[in-house]
């Protein structure tokens, strides 16, 4: 048992701290403190600065233009960035590229695929969206209708994908399609990379619960991608997708815990401001949140440590996913209760991030941000595998409990 980072990681931490000190303006108090109108430009410049300093997508190997660092260095960088309130992945599509697709590419990609996609993902030339869900396949991940047929060196794709976060700013989609219509469910699926900028693709925005067009749906009508853009080979899509879901669920735990701790400090300030900090029930509930964040951090650190020793993520990622999603509902519900009537007439800057806790610097009195966080948190137990599905996975794959019996044919 040793929870310290190795010396080389601590050296890297110092480098990161120096970089941050050199890069951030005087009096910097976090992205959350920037006027909302200035945030987009700051993020563009910040991404470029990261790229210039080899601090974007640091685990991409050097031969593909990355820094070739390890998971532990990535964790250190993330910690330091979250602590001072700057983004590790400044563009909305970077999350899907670097946290989901890049590790999958590194595991399943051919040399040619890696050489093509990795540098372009780094440069921002390719901006990824995910395409797991279809209108009739949400939780039932492999019940896909989108089909692709081989035509010469291409795949021709027809169908619909939905719930693309940041879909409208993406120009490539990674998705699963059915390439063998005769095979059952998970068999006969392939994982493909599809350019969105082509006549066969139509993107439509979807407004979310706060009225923001943050999501999209993709209509594929004879959309074309090269057979070279199949990842892991035709018919192996389910395996690739499951690995990818594992990455999604495992990797961001430590950073989440750090961001949650910052959010909780903001809640403490709010409780003081609203005159609730002496109420024993509120004290207990906020401390309970702190316990949750602490245990979440411990679980995530354990996963990180396991990840350092190699091997693809397993069903344990369902733990982090469920804990994180449900925690964020808990804490934002509490915040809305602490706001009281003030929640009904939201003021102040709104949420910067929709899928995670707000960056350092946000005014704790901004009721608009708390309310948006509460509303956005409703989706956390739904997307990326609902809390119900996570519990099925935990019960069946970790505990080995019996699966639901197959229904008999209708009578």
């Amino acid at each position, binding site marked *: 048992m040793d929870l310290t980072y190795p010396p080389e990681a601590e050296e890297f931490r110092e480098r990161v701290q120096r970089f941050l000190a050199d890069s951030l303006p005087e009096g910097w108090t976090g992205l959350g403190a920037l006027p909302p109108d200035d945030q987009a430009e700051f993020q563009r410049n910040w991404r470029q600065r990261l790229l210039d300093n080899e601090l974007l997508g640091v685990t991409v190997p050097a031969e593909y233009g990355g820094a070739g660092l390890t998971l532990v260095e990535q964790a250190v960088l993330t910690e330091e960035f979250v602590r001072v309130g700057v983004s590790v992945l400044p563009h909305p599509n970077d999350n899907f590229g670097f946290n989901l697709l890049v590790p999958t590419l590194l595991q399943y990609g051919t040399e040619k695929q890696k050489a093509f996609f990795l540098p372009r993902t780094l440069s921002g030339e390719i901006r990824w969206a995910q395409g797991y*869900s279809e209108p*009739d*396949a*949400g*939780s*039932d991940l492999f*019940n896909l209708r989108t089909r692709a047929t081989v035509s010469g060196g291409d795949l021709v794709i027809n169908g619909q994908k*939905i*719930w693309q976060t940041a879909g409208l700013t993406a120009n490539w989609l990674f998705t699963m399609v059915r390439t063998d219509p005769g095979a059952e469910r998970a068999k006969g699926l392939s994982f493909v990379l599809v350019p969105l900028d082509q006549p066969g693709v139509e993107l439509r925005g*979807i*407004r*979310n*619960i*706060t*009225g923001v067009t943050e*999501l999209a749906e993709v209509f594929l009508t004879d959309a074309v991608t090269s057979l070279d853009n199949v990842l892991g080979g035709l018919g192996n899509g389910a395996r690739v997708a499951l690995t990818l879901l594992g990455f999604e669920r495992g990797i961001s735990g430590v950073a989440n815990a750090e961001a949650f701790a910052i959010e909780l400090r903001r809640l403490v300030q709010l409780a003081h401001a609203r*005159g609730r900090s002496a109420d024993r*029930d509120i004290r207990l509930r906020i401390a309970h949140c702190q316990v949750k964040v602490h245990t979440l951090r411990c679980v995530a650190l354990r996963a990180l440590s396991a990840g350092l020793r190699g091997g693809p993520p397993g069903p344990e990622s369902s733990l982090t996913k469920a804990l994180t999603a449900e925690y964020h509902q808990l804490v934002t519900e509490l915040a*809305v*209760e602490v706001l*009281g*009537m*003030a*929640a*009904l*007439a*939201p*003021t102040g800057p709104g949420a910067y991030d929709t899928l995670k806790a707000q960056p350092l610097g946000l005014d704790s009195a901004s009721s608009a941000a708390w*309310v948006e966080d509460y*509303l956005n948190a*409703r*989706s956390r*137990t*739904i*997307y990326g595998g*609902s*809390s*119900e599905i996570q*519990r099925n996975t935990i019960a069946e794959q970790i505990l080995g409990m019996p699966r*639901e019996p*197959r*229904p008999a044919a209708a009578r």
Partner: protein
Amino acid sequence: MHFDLSTEQRDLQASVRAFLAKESPTEAARELPETEQGYDPALWSRMADDLGLHALAVPEEHGGIGASFVELVVVLEEMGRQLVPSPFFSSAVLATRALLRSGDVDAMSRLLPGLAEGTTIGTLALTEDDGSWDLDAVRLAAEPDGNGWALTGAKAFVPDGQSAGLVLVVARSAAGLCLFAVDGDAPGLSRSALPVLDGTRRLARLEFDRTPAVLVGADGAAGPGLRRALEDAAVALGAEQIGAAQRCLDMAVGYAGTRVAFGRPIGSFQAIKHKCADMVLDIESGRSAVWQAAWSVSVDGNDVPLAAAAVQAHCSEAYVRAAQQNIQIHGGIGFTWEHDAHLYLKRALSSRELLGAPDQHLLRIADQMGL
């Protein structure tokens, strides 16, 4: 003993339900908040003229129909179900009950007919910038001014405060807590609409600068009547909440019966089924408590303080839970702007805080228990 709606009450329920389903579809709850007024004046008039809803629980001598509080509660459950964006609660409940409980027969004769006809929209301005529904927290100052009174200070989070023609203001004179009638257009009154989470319930901030006001009831003696009016309103709000929660349950059950995953309707999975059963437990408990409390209000029962607080403590949470679970059961689609589910959630949040959050009602109950 007949703990159920009467045949006439069932008829009222059915006719209001049919009327609202036709005249105030949930698109209205999505579209009207985008308009300047925030409600449909034509519908408002028809509710008053065709159905007599505003007049329902107002005594006949003050221009009302003289039905009991139970009938009012039946109507509010339907309004909650249909999410009608309307100042009905502010006018026919808050303002009307504040007047009825004031003991000031003169003021009732003067003001209730307009509220009952729907020609006047009334509201109650109680909360101030701290958002507290506790009468002890009221600070707005009332001072004698010639033959009348003048008010100075601010009220916040006033439901429909922007559109009300009659604002009943809770203020503090040298003698204590008072209720005042203030004209919506009175000099020295400036009103600003607040940005709202729940567009179906408009809120305003009202600033008073030596605003002329007419005292309702005796100087310094408004406390007991206001407390009773707030209890009445708590029961009425509970009915709205239960109606809305029931609609959330209906939506969830309907969706779960048709949405198929893993080769089965998702409603056949226990995870979904038990969530819906929990909603039934919440809602049936709440409806029973609302009906009991409404009856108790109608006969001036001793247990109204407990019953009303219990209604709010229970129904506020029941509705929020139902609205949240409805979204969860719907999955992605339930999280979109286009689906109605979020409208019900936002209304659930606004209803939970209105008249005081559940913990305020619970603490009141704890006091009654000798804790």
